[in-house]
C-alpha cells in the first residue's frame, strides 16, 4: 500500500542549503575553532616571516612577502582538511546518522558540506589577509577579491579531500595521524615556506604531485606577481585537482556506510 500524501519531498538544493546552514551556524558557536585557525598562520607570518626575514631574501622579495601566500594557504589547507575529516565526529555523536536516514541524496549532503568548508575558509582567509595588510603586506583591492575567489575554489577541492578521508575514518583517533602523515608533508613540500624548484629526487617528485604546490604558486602569484612555476601548468593542475577531488568525494559519499 503506497500513500504519497504523507511522504517527505525534499529538494536537493534546499537540502544542501540546510546542511550548509548547520555547518556555518555551528562554526560561529565554537570560537576556539576560528581562533586556532587564524592564530597559527599569523604567528608564522609575524615571527617566522620577520625573524628569518632578517637574514633571508628570496627572488628579490622580502621573506615575509614570500611566505604570505604560503601562510594564507596554510590557513585554509588545515581548516578545509580537518573540517572534512571532522565528518567522523558527526558520526560519533550520531548527528550524521540523522542526516543519512533522511531522504536527502548523498550528493546534496556532500554539496552542503563542501560549501560549509568553503565559507569557513573564506572567513578565515579574510582575517589573515586583513592582518597581513596591517603588518605591511601589499596587495591591491582587486587582488583581494581575486585571491578570495582562488581560496574558494581551492578550499572546495581540499574540503572534498578531507570529506573523503572522513568518510573512510571510523574513529577520531586518526586525526593525529592525518596531521603528521598528510597535512604537514603537503604543506612543507608545497613551496609555501621555501622554493621547491631546487628540490630533486623523491622530495621533488612529491612536491610535483602535491596539489598544494600549485595552489600556493597561484595564490602567491596573484598576491605579489611572482610565479615560481608556469602559471598555465598551475591552472591546469588546480582545476584538475578540484574536479577530481569532488567527483571522488561524491562517490565516497554514495558508498559511505550509515
Amino acid at each position, binding site marked *: *500500500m*503506497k*500513500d504519497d500524501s*504523507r*511522504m*517527505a*519531498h*525534499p*529538494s536537493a538544493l*534546499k*537540502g544542501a*542549503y*540546510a*546542511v550548509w*546552514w*548547520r555547518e556555518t*551556524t*555551528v562554526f560561529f*558557536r*565554537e570560537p576556539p575553532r576560528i581562533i586556532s585557525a587564524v592564530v597559527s598562520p599569523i604567528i608564522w607570518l609575524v615571527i617566522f616571516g620577520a625573524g628569518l626575514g632578517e637574514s633571508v631574501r628570496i627572488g628579490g622579495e622580502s621573506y615575509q612577502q614570500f611566505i604570505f601566500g604560503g601562510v594564507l594557504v596554510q590557513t585554509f589547507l588545515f581548516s578545509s582538511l580537518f573540517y572534512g575529516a571532522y565528518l567522523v565526529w558527526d558520526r560519533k*555523536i*550520531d*548527528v550524521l*546518522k*540523522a*542526516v*543519512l*536516514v*533522511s*531522504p*536527502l*541524496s548523498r550528493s546534496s549532503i556532500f554539496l552542503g558540506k563542501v560549501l560549509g568548508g568553503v565559507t569557513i575558509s573564506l572567513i578565515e582567509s579574510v582575517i589573515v589577509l586583513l592582518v597581513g595588510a596591517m603588518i605591511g603586506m601589499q596587495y591591491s583591492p582587486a587582488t583581494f577579491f581575486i585571491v578570495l575567489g582562488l581560496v574558494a575554489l581551492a578550499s572546495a577541492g581540499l574540503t572534498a579531500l578531507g570529506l573523503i578521508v572522513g568518510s573512510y575514518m571510523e574513529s577520531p583517533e586518526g586525526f593525529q595521524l592525518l596531521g603528521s602523515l598528510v597535512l604537514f608533508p603537503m604543506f612543507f613540500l608545497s613551496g609555501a615556506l621555501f622554493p621547491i624548484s631546487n628540490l630533486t629526487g623523491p622530495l621533488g617528485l612529491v612536491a610535483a604531485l602535491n596539489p598544494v604546490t600549485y595552489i600556493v604558486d597561484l595564490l602567491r602569484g596573484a598576491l605579489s606577481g611572482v610565479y615560481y612555476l608556469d602559471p598555465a601548468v598551475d591552472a591546469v593542475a588546480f582545476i584538475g585537482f578540484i574536479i577530481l577531488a569532488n567527483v571522488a568525494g561524491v562517490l565516497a559519499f554514495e558508498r559511505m556506510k*550509515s
Partner: protein
Amino acid sequence: MAVIEISKLTKHFGKIHAVDGLCLKIDEGEVFGLLGPNGAGKTTTIKMLATLLAPTSGRATVNGFDIAKSPSKVRQSIGIVFQEPSSDELLSGYENLKLHSMIYGLPGGLVEKRIDDALALVELSDRRNDLVKTYSGGMRRRLEIARGLLHQPKVLFLDEPTLGLDPRGRKTMWGYVKRLVAELNMTILLTTHYMEEADELAGRICVIDNGKAVAVDSPGALKAKVGGDLVTITSSPLPDLKSLTKLKFVRGAEMTDGRLLITVSDAAANLQELLAKIGKVECVEVRSPTLNDVFIKFTGRELEQAEGGWFDKIVQQSVNKQ
C-alpha cells in the same frame, strides 16, 4: 492494510545471527512492539527497515516500498527516533527542528506551525531557544520525538524510546506516543526491553529472542497463553505436586527457588479449594501473568533480569553524561 511487511528478514554479522528469518505484518495505525532482551535483534531489525543496514537475505516493504529496491522512497515515508539522541548540541531545540524541516523539504508555510506544535506536544516550548547541550537526558529524548514526527511520517520507528529515563519520564513519554497515534494516525514500530512499556503502548507484540520471533499477539492474548493466574506458595513441608495436578483447575505446577508455582485457571474462584488441598501454608501470592511470564514460557528465561540492575545504571550514566 499492512503498512510494514517483513518476510524471512535475516541479518548475519559474521557468525552472529542478529536477525534470523523474521516474518511480520504490521497494519496501518497500529502500535506494534518488538519486545526482547538486549541483543535480541530489535535495533538491527529497525535499522534494516529504515534502510540504514542492508539485510543478508529476505525482504521487507515499508509503506509499499521495498527496502532494498527503493530505499529513498522508504526514507521519504518514515521517521525514526534513535536509541542515542542525534540532535546537534550546538543548535537550539528550535534550530534542530528547523534543520530537520529543511532536510525533509517541508513546505515553508507549514514549518513554523509544525515546530510550535511539536515543541508543545513534548513540552519543550519554553526551552525552544536554548542550546541542546543545556538539555537534560530526558529533554533530549523528547526533542528526538518532536523531530521524528515533525514531517508527520506515515510510519514512525521508536528504538527504545525510554531507555535511561526515570519512571516519571517514562510515563510522560508513553503519554506522547499515545497522543501521536490518536491525533496523527501514525503506524508505530517500537522496540523495548521493558515489559510494562510494551504492555502499556502496543496493540500487538512480537516477542523476539536471538533474532527469532517466538510469539506474536496482543498483550492480553499472550498473557492468556500462560494458561491462567499464578499462585506462588511457600510452605514446609511442600505438598505433593502430583496430587495437586490432579485438580481440574490446576494447569501446571513446578518448584522454583524452594517455592511452589502453580498455574491456576480463575484463581479467584478456585483458591479456597487449592489451599484446602495443600493444607498449612506460610505465604500465598496470587497474581495475573505478566509479559515476563510470557517470555519465560516461550524462552525459558527471564526477560528483564537487567532492569534496574547494573546495565540500566550504566546506560543511565552514559545518557546523563552527554
